[in-house]
């Protein structure tokens, strides 16, 4: 009864059930995302954390249905954006949704902008496509958008190569936010930037998000950024979410051995002399994932039961973990003191 | 796989550095040898992946075998020189699968026997332009400055003249023979190789390991051939394969204009040229040599394409 009530309360902007993405290549089938479930409430910001190759970007692309086909094959039980079924959409409808309701900021601003069009045109294109305005009007709004991200409007007529990396990322953000999308996916927006610029860009995103009440998926491997911007955290490993919860849940009540490993491998700000404890081993080869829990070969707590298919376990209403060790009586993990 | 290769290459490169500077006992050549071997395996593995390139290779082997076997089963004097006017213009039949030509000679015999001319002209001329052009390109790229400028200008002169016209002019000047034909075509393609080789050398020229070799007193020639050349190898190999294709085509063009191999050698271009007059009634006279040229050229092009992909795995990403 209460569960149902909670469900009703939830105002989901995104609801994904059992998302699978695989790439069929000459060298074998790469399973990039495996049965991922994800729910995001309107106005929330969720951090998608994981190592390189965990399938974060692929997940993001799958949400926009932008996984290149071939070789990519996407299978999904349910993919709803703001209550609308994205899966069943025709290509025309989909094009209307992209950039309008859901936008994405890409990792590398150096390559994300088309070198042969002016930045103004690139922003205006998005507005022109989705809003019922003339192209002149779209360009005016593009200039305004540029100014909003802190670039003088008169630079709208310049080409990407005339901008620095940080400025380019601002342009990319301007493009993504040009039509005030309901959901913004930011794929490591700051990784390619200098530390000082990173802070500026993050600030900008934070402000804009608040201004437009945009929901956000922040893809990153930087837990610091997550702590700063997000309300919730989802930790990905080998194409699936292994732990999800509020910031509090995941950061302070860490449950999954992999999340534990992630935290342990962070440098300790208070004790700089302390040794780092990296996670042993490498990510499994996505062409031949181990049976059961994909993390088990690297997991210090691995047991016989880990080879069975993994089921999600609710720790609390907001906190989930995908680890069978919690079936073992009295199981708990050890986190280093920070 | 790609990452591994690159990483291993980088590793080998730094290894070379270390060896060169610290103890020179381990010769660079040995390391190159190792590198080459692993590279060859890698290239072959990549090459095998392309079915069209493999078809190209197989067909080429067949053509070469045919060219060789034809020399033994046919007698030049009786099968090539001798005519049989009474049996001229016989349309393809069991006895003459490709028919007979205006002199009553068997076209199949001539096409098979003629394979060696096209292959020889294509291969030798490209060998000439490759050796000459690559050396010039390497020298230009390695030394730079005035030498480079001079070589580049001279190459521009020869590259500026349309290849068929240059070919005609050379053939007119030195007379008609297969050797002149080879040299004419060879010369036509020198600038292409020079440019390719130079372009390949430029990024390598200032690499540390070259510097290291130079500092440690290794001779220029040794550096060029031991260190610089291997790096320019991939584009040159591709160029050679494509060059043979172009060479055969240019040779057939010159033959078609009546400036090729002297009669009665059954060079395909010359056969085409001879059969052109009869194309309406006896189309097979031009069809078969034309097909032979096309297939041979196609084979080299397919191989060139395959090699390019195999040598430059970037495209396979």
């Amino acid at each position, binding site marked *: 009864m209460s569960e149902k009530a909670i469900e009703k309360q939830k105002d989901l902007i995104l609801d994904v059930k059992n998302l699978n993405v695989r790439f069929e290549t000459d060298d074998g089938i790469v399973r990039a995302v495996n049965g991922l479930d994800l729910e995001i409430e309107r106005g929330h910001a969720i951090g998608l954390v994981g190592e390189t190759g965990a399938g974060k970007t692929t997940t993001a692309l799958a949400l926009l249905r932008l996984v290149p086909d071939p070789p990519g094959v996407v299978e999904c039980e349910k993919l709803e954006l703001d209550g609308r079924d994205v899966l069943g959409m025709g290509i025309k409808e989909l094009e209307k949704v992209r950039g309008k309701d859901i936008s994405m900021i890409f990792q590398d601003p150096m390559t994300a902008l088309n070198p042969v069009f002016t930045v103004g045109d690139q922003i205006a294109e998005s507005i022109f496509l989705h809003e019922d305005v003339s192209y002149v009007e779209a360009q005016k709004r593009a200039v305004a958008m540029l100014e909003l991200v802190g670039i003088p409007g008169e630079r709208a007529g310049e080409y990407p190569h005339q901008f620095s990396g940080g400025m380019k990322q601002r342009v990319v953000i301007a493009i993504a936010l040009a039509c005030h999308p309901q959901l913004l996916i930011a794929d490591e927006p700051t990784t390619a930037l200098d530390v000082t610029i990173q802070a500026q860009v993050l600030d900008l995103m934070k402000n804009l998000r608040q201004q437009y009440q945009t929901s956000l998926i922040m893809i990153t491997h930087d837990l610091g950024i997550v702590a700063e911007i997000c309300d919730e955290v989802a930790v990905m490993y080998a194409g699936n979410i292994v732990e999800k919860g509020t910031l509090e849940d995941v950061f302070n009540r860490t449950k999954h051995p992999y999340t534990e490993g992630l935290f342990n491998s962070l440098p300790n700000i208070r004790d700089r002399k302390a040794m780092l404890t990296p996670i042993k081993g490498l990510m499994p080869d996505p062409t031949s994932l181990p049976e059961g829990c994909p993390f088990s070969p690297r997991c210090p707590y691995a047991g016989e039961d880990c080879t069975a298919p993994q089921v999600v376990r609710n720790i609390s209403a907001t906190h989930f973990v995908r680890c069978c060790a919690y079936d073992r009586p009295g199981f708990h993990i050890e986190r280093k003191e920070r | 796989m790609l990452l591994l290769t690159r990483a291993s290459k980088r590793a080998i490169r730094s290894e070379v550095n270390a060896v060169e500077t610290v103890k020179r006992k381990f010769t660079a050549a040995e390391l190159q040898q190792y590198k080459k071997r692993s590279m060859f395996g890698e290239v072959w593995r990549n090459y095998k992946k392309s079915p069209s390139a493999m078809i190209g290779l197989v067909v080429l082997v067949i053509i070469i075998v045919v060219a060789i076997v034809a020399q033994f089963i046919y007698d030049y004097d009786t099968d090539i020189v001798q005519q049989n006017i009474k049996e001229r213009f016989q349309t393809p039949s069991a006895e003459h699968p490709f028919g007979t030509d205006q002199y009553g000679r068997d076209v199949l015999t001539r096409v098979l026997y003629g394979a060696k001319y096209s292959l020889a002209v294509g291969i030798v001329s490209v060998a000439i332009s490759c050796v000459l052009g690559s050396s010039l390109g390497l020298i230009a790229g390695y030394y730079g400055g005035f030498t480079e400028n001079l070589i580049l200008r001279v190459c521009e002169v020869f590259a500026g003249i*349309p290849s068929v016209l240059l070919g005609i002019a050379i053939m007119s000047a030195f007379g008609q023979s297969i050797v002149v034909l080879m040299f004419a075509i060879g010369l036509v393609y020198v600038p292409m190789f020079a440019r390719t080789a130079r372009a390949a050398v430029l990024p390598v020229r200032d690499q540390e390991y070259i510097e290291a070799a130079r500092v440690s007193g290794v001779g220029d020639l040794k550096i060029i051939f031991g260190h610089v050349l291997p790096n320019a190898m991939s584009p040159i190999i591709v160029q050679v394969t494509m060059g043979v294709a172009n060479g055969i085509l240019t040779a057939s063009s010159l033959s078609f204009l009546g400036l090729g191999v002297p009669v009665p050698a059954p060079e395909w271009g010359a056969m085409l040229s001879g059969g052109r007059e009869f194309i309406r009634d006896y189309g097979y006279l031009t069809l078969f040599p034309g097909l032979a040229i*096309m297939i041979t050229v196609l084979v080299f092009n397919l191989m060139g394409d395959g090699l390019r992909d195999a040598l430059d795995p970037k495209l396979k990403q």
Partner: protein
Amino acid sequence: MFRYIIKRILMMIPVLLGVSFVVYYLMDLAPGDIIAQMAPQDATPEQIEMMREELGMNGSVFERYFRYLGKLVQGDLGTSLSQKRPVMELFLERFPVTVELAFGSILVAILISVPLGIAAATHHRTWLDGTSMVTAMLGVSMPSFWLGLLLIMLFALKLGWLPSGGREGFAALILPALTLGANQAGSLTRITRSSMLDVIRQDYLRTARAKGVSEKQVIRKHALKNALIPIITVFGSTLGGAFGGAIMIETVFSWPGVGRLTVRAINDRDMTLATGCIIMFTMFMTLTILLVDIAYAFVDPRIKARYSK
């Protein structure tokens, strides 16, 4: 930009002088000369000497070359030995005809290769890709004169749709342009494909898609303009190839262009005409490449910026 163009044009001069010497010298090496060609069957030795002097063919090859060069640097290509008309006049009379053919063929090549290349790239590793590439490869591998003969047989003779040669009306251009274009299309398709494949992998196309730009627009607007850049760079050499290839095509299709004029001049040992034509040919080809480079700057803002610096 302007200075850059001037520099390029100045660099052309030594090359053209080199071309003039190479051709002149080769022509001199060639056995037989124009006098033997022109003299009446019963000409006397005095008469031959007289003709030699009249045509400026007396003296050693270097003497003659430097005399020729003296005029050449003043922009005078001399008079054709066989036709007794200024070489420049003859060249300019015939050149537009070749340009017509070359551009016609380029047009054909582009119409074939750009859609084919794009289709191949966007359907990478499908049957469409394979077919396109093999078709392209066939185009490059066929001797153009042979293809020309086959096309004449089919369209002029069997079907009677198009004229077999000559230059009367637009219809006469179709077969030669098609023949030459098929040849050019081969290499152009390959370049379009690889350039397109390169661009298709670029992140900015993903950005465009994420913006909601339709797939058609992504290819036509965002990808093509970028893919065009390398295509344009080879356009210069393609045009050069078309000019070179025109020589064979002009022979097969009786196309009265400058290629045939030049081949004839070489055969006639008409040194001034042959040398003059080849110099002009080379000059036009070099200028075309320069023009293409400038056009390149207009498509790619990055390069334009580099020039203006």
